[in-house]
């Protein structure tokens, strides 16, 4: 299916011709996100500049039954913000205004296209910051963070995006605008804000986002610990967590990642001969308390095999240590033509075993895997460097990724901690959710978007719901889902006669 030129004309009347992209080269700019193995060329790209324009665009598309995909800066890592030729890509980067900062109540109201780091910069004069800090924070948008429930290194102490979003104005699939939540964080009725955050655009378009700000910590101490084994570093992570001290961040990088960073312009002075380093940050209100916590953590790290623990000497040194961590993905991008950034979570105590299993999988498939991840949360990012032009290599990468996911699931974990399902992880969803649970998720989606037009084909693998429902119906001797009339899509799956 391709979109008719009259739709493009109608969109241009709403947002202005300059903000409708029709040419193949223009649209190709939006064909990928941060996970470049997925590629889709959108039918039309439209960039509304205001809430009212978003509403008008969504209503126009609803009137014609055209699917659309909301997109922020396109830094996502799951293929979640890609649209195909039959869909419109709704790019929200022009809605980039910070509407309000209320320092007394520590609340900000922003449009979805505001770049994450710019919010913290705007809040800084008030002694406040926006806590979720994904590695892409210099480019990613708050709207995208809401869609993916983004995390970041400092979410260990301060929580992920869902913990910081208080209220939303949402344009539903039919163009209706609803207000969810309240600036105080207390919901009006059920917690629909909590349900919306992380729904990957399936429930509508957030055009106005109210978030919580937190005070900038007055004292910060950043430690770099050097370990001769990955297992030792993993065990040390559990020991720190169990100690009761909650670091602001607790990150791990393995040797492969260290080498990539040190070979790049982001070189941070990490010890090249270390099997792994832990980057630990402690923050708080007062210098003595933070110093005491840092000393306690240093003792734990040394007690668990750290060869050395050094503290950032000053703010510049701290920034250098963090730059190496935050730009690690970029540094690894230099190593090979293609990079798959994986995302999974395991119980923290399982880290040593799972890291060893990942290394075994990499060896078995003869792949280069680097680990840089949020160890304090058990949130792994095994990154596979490869060249997709080599025949058969991509298949090996896919197979190895699947085994890594399976290893994480077997350890009691899950398939994504902050990147989302998008297109990339659809195939793994049936590994962690049964058909009944997937069908229930789809039922929720149908409440918000009965025709499944908003970001279609993402998050919930519809085939798994259908296969399961078919099996259940066959078991009960009644009709199969696939035989249900198309109008049945308008009611929740769970309401279908069985």
């Amino acid at each position: 299916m391709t979109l008719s030129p009259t739709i493009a004309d109608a969109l241009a009347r709403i947002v202005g011709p300059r903000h409708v992209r029709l040419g193949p080269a223009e649209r190709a700019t939006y064909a990928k996100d941060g996970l470049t193995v997925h590629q889709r060329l959108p039918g039309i790209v439209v960039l509304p500049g205001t809430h009212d324009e978003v509403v008008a665009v969504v209503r126009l598309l609803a009137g014609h039954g055209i699917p659309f995909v909301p997109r922020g800066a396109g830094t996502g890592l799951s293929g979640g913000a890609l649209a195909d030729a039959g869909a419109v890509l709704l790019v929200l980067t022009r809605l980039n205004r910070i509407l309000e900062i209320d320092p007394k109540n520590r609340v900000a109201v922003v449009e979805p296209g505001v770049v994450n780091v710019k919010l913290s910069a705007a809040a800084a004069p008030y002694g406040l910051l926006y806590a979720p800090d994904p590695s892409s924070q210099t480019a990613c948008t708050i709207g995208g963070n809401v869609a993916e429930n983004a995390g970041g290194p400092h979410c260990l102490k301060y929580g992920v995006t869902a913990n910081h979003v208080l209220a939303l104005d949402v344009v539903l699939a039919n163009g209706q605008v609803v207000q969810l939540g309240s600036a105080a964080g207390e919901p009006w009725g059920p917690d629909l804000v909590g349900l919306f955050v992380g729904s990957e655009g399936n429930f509508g378009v957030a055009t106005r986002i109210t978030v919580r700000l937190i005070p900038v910590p007055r004292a910060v101490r950043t430690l770099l610990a050097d370990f001769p084994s990955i297992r030792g570093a993993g065990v040390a992570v559990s020991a720190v967590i169990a100690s009761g001290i909650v670091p602001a961040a607790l990150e791990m990088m393995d040797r492969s990642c260290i080498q990539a960073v040190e070979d790049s312009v982001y070189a941070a002075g990490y010890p090249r001969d270390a099997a792994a380093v832990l980057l630990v940050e402690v923050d708080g209100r007062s210098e003595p308390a933070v110093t005491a916590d840092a000393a306690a953590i240093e003792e734990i790290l040394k007690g668990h095999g750290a060869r050395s623990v050094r503290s950032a000497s000053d703010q510049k040194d701290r920034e250098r240590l963090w730059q190496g961590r935050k730009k690690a993905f970029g540094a690894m991008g230099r190593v090979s033509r293609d990079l798959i950034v994986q995302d999974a979570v395991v119980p923290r105590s399982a880290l040593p075993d799972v890291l060893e299993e990942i290394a075994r999988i990499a060896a078995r498939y003869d792949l280069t895997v680097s680990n840089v991840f949020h160890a304090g949360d058990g949130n792994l990012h095994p990154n596979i460097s490869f060249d997709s032009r080599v025949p058969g290599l991509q298949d090996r990468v896919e197979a190895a990724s699947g085994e890594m996911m399976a290893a994480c699931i077997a350890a009691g974990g899950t398939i994504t901690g902050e990147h989302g399902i998008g297109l990339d992880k659809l195939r793994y969803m049936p590994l962690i959710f049964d058909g009944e649970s997937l069908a229930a998720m789809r039922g929720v989606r149908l409440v918000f978007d009965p025709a499944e037009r908003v970001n279609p084909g993402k998050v919930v693998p519809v085939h798994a719901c259908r296969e399961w429902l078919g099996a259940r119906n066959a078991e009960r001797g009644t009709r199969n889902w696939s035989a249900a009339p198309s109008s049945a899509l308008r009611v929740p799956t769970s309401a279908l006669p069985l």
Partner: protein
Amino acid sequence: MKIVERVRALLGREAVLEDTGAPDGLPRVAPSSPDAVALLLGTAREEGWRVRVEGAGTWMPADAPADLALTTRRLDRIPSIQPQDLSATAEAGVGCDQLRQQLADHGAWLSIDPPGLAGRTLGSVVATATSGPLRHGFGPIRDHLVGVTFVTGDGRIIQSGGRVMKNVAGYDLTKLQTGGFGAFGVVVLVHLRLHALPRADQTLVLEGPREDLSRVAEDIVAAGLTLAALELLSPPLGRRERWSLAVRLAGSAAAVAEEEAGLRAVTGGQFAALRSDEAHAFWMRAAEAFATRPVTFRIGGLPDSSDDLLDLIQHQVGDEWVSATPGVGTLRWGGETSVDRLRRLRRILAAQEVPLTIERAPWVTRRAVGHFGAYREGVGPLVEGLRHTFDPGAAISVAVDGDERAG
């Protein structure tokens, strides 16, 4: 076949409780597994039975009209406590006191202090999202959950989230269940995020006129102290002659000493420290008091509106039993009041963009005003659609909307 006989045939004789002494005379069914809950609710859907969901029976009055009562009291296992991961999994019928004790034995702490009696079930706390003073330092109930398993009104077992600390796989149905009052299913299993048991736990109290204490609270918040709780309690609730501003500090001994010094510096050293047993009694009595008032509701405003909201509450329904969390802006009220007053108060608050949630009340009140009441424009159909998704036969007897539904 009578309901009791049918249920016994389905779940075994022991599933129907004998001689509960409940005045309603309803069969009281206590399934011992999520599968049994699913079987019961699936049958209820087929038979058209209405089901009242109960925990320990210490919070919500057991008066919702129904054909049978489903109690979670036999879902009382704690399958997993992982102190090294600071996570645990507990069934919904576990009493909070029992859970707290077992966690403490492992050096772990679930940092919530919901209102109600000590034996109130975890499922009740999750379903009603009733946080206590620790919300100041540790967030609302939802921040402590990493996943739930629930059973829909037509008997489907649904998993949401998982057991790990971060998880964005699929839609977050855990958030829908937290504070859903059972309208979207019956929570049977809860995966929890824990903290290490604090080595030091100090409570300090300042008494005085409410307005003065509100100003002190503002100063404390502005100072950015790291507090576990900062709670303003009415005189009967604090069991004192005047209002109380209570501060709770929890963490390492050094951290608690540091924050206490900071508190005294900000407030001029006026706070009185409670002994450990006094502190325990202080917080426990305040929590229990709400279980003995006929009606309890919570409202959520912005922190800087906290004092104005207290004035409004005092004017509309009285402020004898009030506990406010000024750093967050939430406020809990307990007492006796009429449906008309609740409706009027909810309308006034709605005009100020402040939601009011009925946490407990007699059925006649719940039915009239609903736990949630009127929704904002366009939200009502979403809630109705979600209810239909998770309870298509409306088997679960719950009044979330009230008579004045809108939107």
